[in-house]
């Protein structure tokens, strides 16, 4: 799947709009719509599976990329930003307790933030930081068709 880096990121803007109207979490709104998705709310395996496959880069965090509400979540946002990755899916688990628990069940990982690349869980903030430091993140992004901005920065350095 080729990622479009420059189209800007969404934090589930549609979901936020739904919540704004109804004043309730998205899971309940979907249920009222007829429950077409079958089992479970926003924290079910099926729902989470859909979210992690939505985009090459998906982050479950506290707050939003514009306003992280946790130092660890902010670290993830900053690292992605360093690599020029601004187009990704970010889900604020503080807005949805079902998702908050569901994502932990799905990955069998006890904490937030959680980073998924190409639908696969890669780890939290500590692991992303180490991947950034040892060059693995540049490689993983390359596999997703995303060219890290750090490569361009290096090229500029060489030109000087």
């Amino acid at each position: 799947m080729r990622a479009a880096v420059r189209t800007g990121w969404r934090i589930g803007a549609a979901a936020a709009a739904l919540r704004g109207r109804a004043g309730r979490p998205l899971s309940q709104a979907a249920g009222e719509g007829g429950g077409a998705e079958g089992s479970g709310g926003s924290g079910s395996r099926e729902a989470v599976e859909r979210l992690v496959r939505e985009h090459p880069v998906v982050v479950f965090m506290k707050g939003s990329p514009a306003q992280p509400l946790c130092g660890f979540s902010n670290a993830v946002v900053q690292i992605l930003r360093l690599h020029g990755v601004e187009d990704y899916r970010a889900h604020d688990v503080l807005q949805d307790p079902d998702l908050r628990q569901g994502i932990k069940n799905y990955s069998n990982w006890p904490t937030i933030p959680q980073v998924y690349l190409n639908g696969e869980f890669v780890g939290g903030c500590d692991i992303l930081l180490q991947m950034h430091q040892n060059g693995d993140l540049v490689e993983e992004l390359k596999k997703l068709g995303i060219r890290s901005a750090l490569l361009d920065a290096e090229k500029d350095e060489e030109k000087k």
Partner: protein
Amino acid sequence: QIHPPSSCSFSPMRGPLLAAAGRAMGGTGGPLARTIHAKLTAALQPTHLEIRNDSPRHGGPPGAETHFGVLVVSGRFAGLPLLQRHRLVHEALQAELAGPLHALQVVARTPQQWESDPNAPPAPPCLGGSKREKRRG
């Protein structure tokens, strides 16, 4: 001859001091810190172990034990990718993570890795999330 770094960014205390605190000298070693120490020691037989209570940095009152960072150096990590190493640490602390342990920073290295780089990143600053939400894991 390997000299310990004069300042270790991971913890402000030398290893032996943390271990001494764990042996109920009071001060920095609360009950959860001691439990973390004991469980990680039993599960991973670390050659080096540092435990840092970050709770005060996240708005915790005195004596709070909710946010920790652990630096674990163990031969058990050899050949394992980062994700698996961290899972081993989580496994050892499963009960605590389901309970009072709200956040856990993990640095997991083999003895060879630690020897070649005896430094670890400091904790990221709190951005107030825990002050704005119910305290749960």
